[in-house]
């Protein structure tokens, strides 16, 4: 009976009434959303030309903007993003790779 109860509990908790997440953090976003987020930062960077703004937007996805862009680049290549978009992401990477993040940069 324990096995039957366990099966019922799993079925109910996973299928009928799975956990509904609210108020989540960008760090937990799905990989494709994160890649698109990085692309948006790269697009906005075209306009703003301010690496500190781009960095502050990227750290919302995690502590290392460089790693975040690298992961997004891998995803973008695997999923055949447009060449122009890959160039944008690469330009963003080149612009921020030499910048160290300080605690005050995003205040």
């Amino acid at each position: 009976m324990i096995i039957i109860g366990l099966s019922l509990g799993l079925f109910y908790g996973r299928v009928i009434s799975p956990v509904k997440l609210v108020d989540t953090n960008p760090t937990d976003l799905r990989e494709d959303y994160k890649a698109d987020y990085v692309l948006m930062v790269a697009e906005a960077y075209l306009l703003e030309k301010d690496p500190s703004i781009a960095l502050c937007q990227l750290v919302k996805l995690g502590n290392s903007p460089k790693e975040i862009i690298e992961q997004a680049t891998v995803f973008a290549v695997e999923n055949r993003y447009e060449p122009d978009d890959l160039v944008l992401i690469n330009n963003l990477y080149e612009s921020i790779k030499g910048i160290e993040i300080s605690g005050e940069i995003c205040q």
Partner: protein
Amino acid sequence: MSPSRRQSPIYLITGLIIGLLVGLFYSWVYSPVGVLETELYTLRSDFKDDYRGLIASAYLANSDLGRAQSRLDLLQDEDSIRALTVQAQRELGQEGSDLIARALGILAADIGNGFSGNPEISPSNTPIPTETQISSPTITQTAGPSKTPTLTLTPLASRTPTPTVGAAFILRDYTLVCESAYQETSLIMVRVFNSANQPVPGEKIVASWDQGQDSFFTGLKIEFGLGYADFEMSPDTSYTIRIADGGESLPGLSPLECENDDGDRWLGSWSVNFTQP
């Protein structure tokens, strides 16, 4: 019937309940589905604002309306246009970024009108993340306010102009509006047109007075026209209105009293039109 035979169903039920509880604990607490792969619409509201601002900033850069709309759809706002305009006004009210407020306003206006201000740029084929449960995109106009302007309502343009970089704006005309629909508040209602006489969204207007100044943007109340913006006057205060990008200014605007045939009195509003020569 012996006592042991009467107890056996209880043990069975106890086992079932224990199994059920363990299963639910595992599903809801220990290893909930998809915790590390969340959807955009589950983001906290301030992160959603960041995301929306980023969508608008990216749109200013690439003018790809389809891409911007696809991204907005993923946030599952009930009304994307309203969400954009409300956030734009909040950005201005909380001394947020002028650029983001402007971007949000322009994106709202372009979605309302259904096309990009820069059609020469072809849409990208890069796949935008999709959420399979979302139905096909639906753009809904915001519900109009209870107060409906009865005068000089600017017809929607057939094309959305982007903020025009060109000649400085000049004052076309200004009139006192004494319609009873405006009795509750005394407004400065600004409309901005480009040289082709098309309304211009996203134009920053500055209202200054003795003790300070404030700014507001056209296009955030698209129900009144893409080039429309308004500002609420305080009694006994004289305002100067100008376009932030430069050009002619209009000083000396203050609430003036109106009166109808029945002797009712109220403070009127000013309608001010700027245009590029």
